[in-house]
């Protein structure tokens, strides 16, 4: 651990996002994000884990500026980009922050060759000029993601899912980004090729010093890949810790429930043993009640939980949680120094 804390490349502060749902005459509002903060540093992978609807993809889409937040700040190198470029992200922002998606079938255009997919960002961002330079850059990009050079002349439908996801990563790398946002990059791939994509993401961190946000519902893969893991529940990031520490000593009841539910045949005896006490349905996102969203399912719920969402409480070095069982935490309306801010 180095003593000098390097400042984050990309940071979000207290992001909220409300969506309008329902018909023409009933305007209901859905709370997708309820004040989420996190920071990404160079040469670091942060995993964001949560169930579907918890808001993890919304965070990535806001960070990629595909979606505008209802409130909150996005800081690139400490500068508030929503203030400096409020409408549309600048070309420079889009060069530095790249995103890959879950579906490698939907993210490539079936009428164009792989070379075309990789040449476009190179030309658009002025990374290569002339035919020879383009050709070399495309070959180099394919080599970086462990694809043969002859893939360049193929069309997406000629590739397997794993190869397509590698092409999507190569396309993101074409513009030499600082941050890679990966939204469930392996969940649609066959099991045997998932490890290859995870190992590639790890290598890109090591070799290129990329800051990566790895969004997943699979805690085991988060632990495998990420230096830090953040757990989301119903729009809140409820716990954050170094990945191994989070698995070893989870502090939030939801994190414990989640960990107990993961199939782990090596560690478990009989089927369905160790069932956690999770009850009730999903949290209400439309007209959410006050308090902690996990209160309706929490085995350890207290009166305070239904009144107010607790602030951030530090439970160890780099390990924090938002849970009344641990403490009231810092004022939820004040600054959140601990949210995703490790002492490095």
């Amino acid at each position, binding site marked *: 651990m180095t003593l000098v804390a390097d400042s984050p490349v990309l940071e979000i502060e207290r992001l909220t996002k409300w969506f309008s749902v329902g018909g023409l005459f009933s305007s209901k509002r859905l709370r997708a994000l309820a004040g989420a903060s996190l920071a990404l540093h160079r040469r670091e992978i942060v995993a964001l884990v949560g169930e579907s609807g918890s808001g993890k993809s919304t965070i990535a889409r806001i960070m990629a500026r595909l979606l505008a937040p209802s409130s909150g700040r996005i800081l690139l190198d400490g500068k508030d980009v929503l203030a400096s470029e409020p409408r549309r992200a600048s070309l420079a922002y889009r060069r530095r922050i790249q995103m890959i998606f879950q579906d490698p079938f939907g993210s490539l255009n079936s009428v164009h060759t792989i070379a075309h997919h990789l040449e476009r960002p190179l030309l658009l961002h002025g990374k290569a000029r002339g035919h020879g330079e383009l050709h070399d850059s495309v070959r180099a990009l394919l080599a970086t993601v462990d694809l043969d050079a002859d893939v360049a002349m193929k069309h997406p439908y000629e590739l397997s899912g794993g190869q397509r996801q590698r092409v999507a990563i190569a396309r993101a790398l074409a513009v030499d980004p600082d941050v890679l946002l990966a939204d469930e990059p392996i969940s649609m791939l066959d*099991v*045997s090729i998932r490890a290859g994509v995870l190992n590639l993401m790890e290598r890109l961190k090591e070799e290129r010093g990329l800051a990566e946000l790895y969004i997943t519902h699979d805690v085991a893969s988060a632990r495998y890949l990420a230096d830090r893991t953040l757990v989301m529940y119903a729009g809140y990031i409820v716990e954050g810790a170094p990945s191994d520490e989070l698995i070893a000593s989870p502090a939030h009841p939801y994190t414990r429930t989640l960990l107990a539910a993961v199939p*782990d045949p090596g560690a478990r005896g009989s*089927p369905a043993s160790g069932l956690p006490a*999770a009850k009730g349905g999903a949290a209400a996102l439309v007209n959410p009640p006050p308090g902690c969203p996990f209160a309706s399912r929490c085995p350890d719920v207290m009166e305070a939980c239904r009144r107010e969402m607790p602030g951030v409480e530090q439970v160890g070095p780099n390990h924090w949680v938002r849970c009344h069982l641990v403490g009231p935490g810092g004022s939820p309306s004040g600054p959140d120094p601990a949210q995703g801010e490790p002492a490095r």
Partner: protein
Amino acid sequence: MPDAPLLRVRDLRVEYLGPRGSVAAVDGVSFDLARGETLGLAGESGSGKSTIAQAILRLLGPPAAITGGSIIVDGAEVLDMSEPDLRALRWRQVALVFQSALTALNPVMTVGDQIADAVLSHQGTGRRRARERAAHLLDLVGIGTERIDSYPHEFSGGMRQRAVIAIALALEPPLLLMDEPTTALDVVVQREILHQIGELKKKLGFSILFITHDVSLLVEISTRVAILYAGKLVEMADAKELLQDPRHPYTRGLLASSPSLRGPRLKLTGIGGSPPDMRSPPSGCRFHPRCPDVMVRCSEDPPLLTQRGAGRSVACHLYST
């Protein structure tokens, strides 16, 4: 014959007939499922695992066709059955639970009516008896009878999957085919559903053919596990033995592809290459282009699934003498 298996599949072959020749999606698959057993069938996309489930119920339509083998359910040959026989087989003896519970349910009918319909269409009971049965089944799967007049859209994903299981259980069939029943669900809900299935199995004593791509899940819930690769079974073993001592290089690779939650953080190797194009499957052993232990004969001579010790079969030349 009390010891005869509930389900016996022998040399099953299913082909998809296309304009440029046929593709054997299932190629010579044989296995038994004993009464009360949970057999797990694992494989990646294109391995033929869902095709096997649909073949057992004769649900395959063109371009797919069963072109060989035998499927015996409770002593009767499914491939010889007439339409009325098949109607009796489906639901009454074998029920199928799909992955996508949302599309399996009718959106404009209450859940109670859908369960009652399944009962009515197969049993000569009255509407009132059928509704009582529906209420009982909803209670059984943990939904609660008060939701009998709810529509599917009022249910969460987990509740919909429970409702689908309730429909499958309507006639108390001895065999349930479950094709990725929890894949679309979050892990916490998945755990609840699996627990519920385990409880129901204890209570009702049915057998399960559980199909999934998630080997760690399968090993946890199954008595025996069969591993499928490119339409062929490559290994079959007791679930715990398979986990502790996988023999086929593909099984080993598959187990080394998923990170574990606890224990040392080992570097995952995965399996190199990609799953084969089934239009032109590799010669010899279909896994040979990706196999780390490949030998000369592997590309020429397809290995047969051979018994290697008690309850263990492997199709690999590494173990032939």
